[in-house]
């Protein structure tokens, strides 16, 4: 009973101590020179408390969408990179367990995925998302 709850207990402990530490640490260590800009949560960013319908530059939106292209790419390629050389629970194990019929299909799948993302990248590129007009 206790064994199975231990990770949760540790999680709760870390989740409690981490923010307390992050709040206390700067309070003890950091120099205090309060100005109006310093008091903002993000010194160089937007004012976080404002009307939700405030306008902001649409170019940020396009960049955010384009960021997703690379974000999703990482999401899929990182597990692939980890699994391909991992003997105990990787691609070879899946082949041995007859879950996939060979390493080739994994490679082709990843390549198709990269190809689709590349197409999305070319699309945004040609649409001029990277030109800061």
């Amino acid at each position: 009973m206790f064994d199975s709850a231990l990770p949760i207990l540790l999680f709760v402990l870390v989740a409690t101590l981490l923010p307390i530490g992050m709040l206390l640490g700067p309070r003890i260590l950091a120099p205090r020179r309060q100005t109006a800009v310093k008091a903002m949560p993000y010194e160089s960013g937007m004012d976080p408390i404002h009307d939700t319908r405030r306008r902001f530059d649409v170019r940020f939106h396009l960049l955010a969408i384009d960021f997703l292209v690379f974000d999703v790419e990482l999401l899929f390629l990182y597990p692939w990179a980890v699994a391909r050389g991992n003997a105990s629970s990787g691609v070879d194990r899946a082949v041995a367990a007859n879950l996939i019929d060979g390493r080739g299909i994994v490679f082709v799948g990843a390549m198709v995925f990269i190809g689709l993302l590349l197409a999305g990248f070319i699309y945004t590129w040609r649409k001029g998302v990277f030109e800061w007009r």
Partner: protein
Amino acid sequence: MDPNAAYTSAAGVLQLIPEMIVVGGAVFVFVGGTFAKSKTAWSWVAAAGLAAAGLALWTQKVPGGFAGPIAVDALGYTLRWLVLLLGGVFVLALARPAAAGQAPEVTGSLLLAIAGGMIVSVSGELVLLFVALETISIPTYVLLYVGRKDSASQESAAKYFFLSILSSAVTLYGFCFLYGVTGSTHLAEIARVLQNTSVAAVADWGPLPDLALVLIFVGLAFKIAAAPFHFYAPDVYQGTTHENAMLLAVLPKVAGIAALIRVTTLAMPLAAGTGWRIALFLAVVTMTVGNMTALWQKNVRRLLAYSSIAHAGYLLIGLAAGFAATLGPQGSRPEEGLGASVFYLVVYAFSTAGAFAALAYLGSPERQVDTVAELAGLGRTRPVSAAALAVFMFSLAGVPPLAGFWGKLSLFLSALDVRSSPGLGASRQTWFIVLAVIGALNAAVAATYYLRVVATMYFLPPAKEPRAEGGGAVRTAGGLCLVAVLLIGLLLGPMLIQATQDAVQASAPVPPPKPAQQAQIDGAPPSIVR
């Protein structure tokens, strides 16, 4: 498929070649559109892509069963053909709006939505099914929004977006429970686990299979616009174009019914006792609400929206009958109701797509037909278009000898064929007789507003000069639908009903359990019966 084949095998993946061609076409259109500035070429590319996909589908073998996550069975094959043929109609109908706006984006999104519909048809696995449903939804948001700047279309796109997300979330929640109960996302495995009706297993599950069923039903009821989850449809259709409304009225409905048949009816026989009640209740409410509200509509897209809601109710009759028949008694044929639903999908899709195509043709790019009154006197000024629209209306109303008649006939017959099993649930047969009667009454009520459109066209003096500037492509789309409706009505109806029923019968994931075993779990939740 080869039982020793790996779960994800090259042979299984190659079954998806038609879908790959369509997706490849979409990618080509999206990327190519940024290099070449042509407005009209992309519809031709899309048409060529669909033709190539059709060719690939034609040469494909139908081994039956599953190739890993892909259901390579007759049901999937039938539905893929339906979606592909409808895709041709959509590409034709949207050719003109695409050329007027952002052609590559419109055409590419349309191709992706068609590919999504085809993948839903062959999904034998919950994750694949969900991804496929989203592959339909996400390009549809783009289609609703792109190229139009008025506030009505923005409202329409936003409403559809939020409702669609909500429905996806609810569906996914249901899938989670299904996975939690069975420990698998594969439909064959889910069906196998849920057929284990031992006391311990059933007590262990509690109400979870039923809960999963209800959530999946609610989520997909949004997709097929069944009452009480229908309220977004009239607003969205009214705010958009006839061409977009055609896509919205047809593609999500095909996908939703396909998903419902695959996940609930074929894979969850244990929950059938709850299932037929939900489907029957939804069918009655949806038919009645749709038809009664349609009576008051003056806007023609709102009218067709409520008509499409009512037809979702008819489609659910077959589902309810299929569910009830899985409970026995011996000799019951679940495929009768389910096949009738699939056949009705074909009939409904071509009739509705044709009606929207005819209305799109009668308008002009600047001003589309909005009210029924604008159709006045069309019988004299535009006799061919008026005749085509009348045929579609008669087909939707279910007047013989058109396609809609065979559809309604097969649905009502399947409801009347449901038999009670001995013991619990003896009232089932009565319920289905009531359902068939309500369905028939609804068909009579529905005829009122369909005939009102026809009467407006033929018996009222022309209101103003009809425009009929929709273009040749959408006229061809309407013509194809007309051919389909007449062909099914006059020649192919009974044959196609038989074919869809055979297809469904060949596609159950596991053989249905013995009726004696089923009789016990009929009616009440199993844990109470034992």
